[in-house]
């Protein structure tokens, strides 16, 4: 089965869900979520049967790539969507409260149909090897996210987040198009393969200008400086499952696009030094800002927002250190890091959703005494925070370690110094969460926090994945 059937399947699934949703009575919207989950799971099974194409020269393959890397990122997108749908089912009570229609009941059906369409966009991004398809798929996801972020229409925070995301997203889209058109102007090509061959003979100025514009625009997608302003506010305001989706799915696909778009530039020796310098500068700025700004945060969602920024810094550092490390290429490192990031970040958001459902708060204070109110939930938080901080034997550690290896291979000493300081700051703010969970005592009269069976199985899967990836990286790296 060729790979693009997957995207077709997901799009059809999304459309069918939309239509069915329109005809479903409000009290049965939960079923839409289960149907979407089942459909995504089925697509994931289909993914396992995909074979790489025969090498036939259909024009399709100039736009569409089905290498193992693309398939891997498709899998990541599908997994992430499935987890987000589960989180959405868990989040439904909060959503119902804030999404009521003017006259009628809550409108929660699209909350499960739109992620499926976004997932299609993410999967297309994973396969896009032409600047037109890159742009189209990027927009498909971004437009979906515009709606999702502002979904809770009775919540001012969500609306504010929606407006911010819309304006900055539109701005970054403009910059991206501008950059892509400069790239097209410099090389006269839209296919990335053709661009790679044409770029060495292109004029240096326009090529560098295009590089800078594209990088800046992609920084929006991956939540890196200088386009990070939206991150904390949007993360805080958006419905939590959407925040998780933004933080994981959008970032993962964005990084694959970044790898693909940066690669031709880094392959040209005359541009390479400058491009690496720009990338390292962006990575360092991201690391410094993300980690320093995370330190004083008292809101768990904002904390995760800045943590997302700082992880983007590590990933950018890996992207900038693309040679000298043999089999452990920067692409493989990024793929592993993102898988680890998926597990631990979704784990953190899952805990947050469960706690928010009981306490109605996203603040760190809501975590006080969690290990007494629900020991399993406390343990889950512990694992998530430890992995995000990079404590060994968790997935987050190996990700950071591989980045250090790559950066040491590329002799980026200054960046390594900043990354070490940043990771040490990470210890501070992630352990702050653990401190709330284990050291602080719960407020008077705080009841135990219930965990539904769905949420519990989700947590167990994510904890197991975080720990297994921490000791057996071959599981991921063997796929690439």
């Amino acid at each position, binding site marked *: 089965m060729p790979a693009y059937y997957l995207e077709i399947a997901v*799009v059809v699934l999304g*459309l069918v869900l*939309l*239509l069915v949703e*329109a*005809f479903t009575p409000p009290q049965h919207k939960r079923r839409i979520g289960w149907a979407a989950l089942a459909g995504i799971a089925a697509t994931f099974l289909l993914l396992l049967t995909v074979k790489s194409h025969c090498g036939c020269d259909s024009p399709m393959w100039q736009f569409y790539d089905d290498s193992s890397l693309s398939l891997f990122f498709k899998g990541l997108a599908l997994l992430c969507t499935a987890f987000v749908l589960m989180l959405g089912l868990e989040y439904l009570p909060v959503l119902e409260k804030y999404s009521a229609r003017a006259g009628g009941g809550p409108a929660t059906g699209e909350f499960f149909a739109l992620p499926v369409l976004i997932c299609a966009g993410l999967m297309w991004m994973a396969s896009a090897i032409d600047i037109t398809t890159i742009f189209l798929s990027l927009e498909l996801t971004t437009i979906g996210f515009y709606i999702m972020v502002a979904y809770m229409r009775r919540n001012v925070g969500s609306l504010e987040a929606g407006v911010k995301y819309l304006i900055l997203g539109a701005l970054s889209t403009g910059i991206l198009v501008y950059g892509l058109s400069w790239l097209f102007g410099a090389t006269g090509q839209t296919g990335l393969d053709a661009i790679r061959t044409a770029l060495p003979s292109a004029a240096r100025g326009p090529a560098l200008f295009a590089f800078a514009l594209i990088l800046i625009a992609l920084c929006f997608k991956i939540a890196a400086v200088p386009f990070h302003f939206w991150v904390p506010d949007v993360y805080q305001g958006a419905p939590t499952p959407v925040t998780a989706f933004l933080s994981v799915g959008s970032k993962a696909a964005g990084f694959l696009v970044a790898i693909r778009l940066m690669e031709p530039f880094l392959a040209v020796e005359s541009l390479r030094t400058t491009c690496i310098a720009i990338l390292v500068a962006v990575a360092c700025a991201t690391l410094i800002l993300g980690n320093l700004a995370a330190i004083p945060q008292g809101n768990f969602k904002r904390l995760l927002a800045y943590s997302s920024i700082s992880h983007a810094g590590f990933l950018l550092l890996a992207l900038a250190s693309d040679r000298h490390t043999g089999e452990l290429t920067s692409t493989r490192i990024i793929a592993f890091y993102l898988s680890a990031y998926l597990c631990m970040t979704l784990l953190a958001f899952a805990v947050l959703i469960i706690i928010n459902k009981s306490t109605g708060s996203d603040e760190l204070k809501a975590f006080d005494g969690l290990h007494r109110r629900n020991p399993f939930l406390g343990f889950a938080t512990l694992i998530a925070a430890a992995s995000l901080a990079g404590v060994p034997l968790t997935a987050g550690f190996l990700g950071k370690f591989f980045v250090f290896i790559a950066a040491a291979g590329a002799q980026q000493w200054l960046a390594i110094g900043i990354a070490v300081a940043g990771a040490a700051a990470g210890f501070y703010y992630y352990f702050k969460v653990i401190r709330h969970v284990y050291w602080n005592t719960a407020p008077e009269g705080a009841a135990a926090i219930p965990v539904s069976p769905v949420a519990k199985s989700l947590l167990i899967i994510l904890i197991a994945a975080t720990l297994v990836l921490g000791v057996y990286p071959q599981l991921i790296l063997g796929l690439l």
Partner: protein
Amino acid sequence: MLSEYLPVLIQMITATGLAASMLILSVVLGKSGNQSDIKNSPYECGMLPIGEGQPRFSVKFYMVAMLFVLFDIEVVFMYPWAVVFRDMIVTHTIMFWSMLSFAGILLVAYLYALKKGALNWKE
């Protein structure tokens, strides 16, 4: 080389000329004949020219306008498709089916909009 850009030049001259001629003609011809307040007021498609700076429109205007743009784009795509691939559509049926699937997606969107009451003016 530069001659390729001749149509652009003509376009620019035409556009500038048209706009300029409208302005000039209205100045030259407009001040003649009987004058009255109504005649001297700016022409605004029959709406009252005086009112609030930012009048409130019903949100339905936007809904309809957006839907119009969306479905308009469909036609905008179809024209060049039909012209450019006129022969290929017959030989390569996938061309036909892909455009049909595009139209199908829009059909789903239309049904969805209809069911959600986006075109229902009264509510």
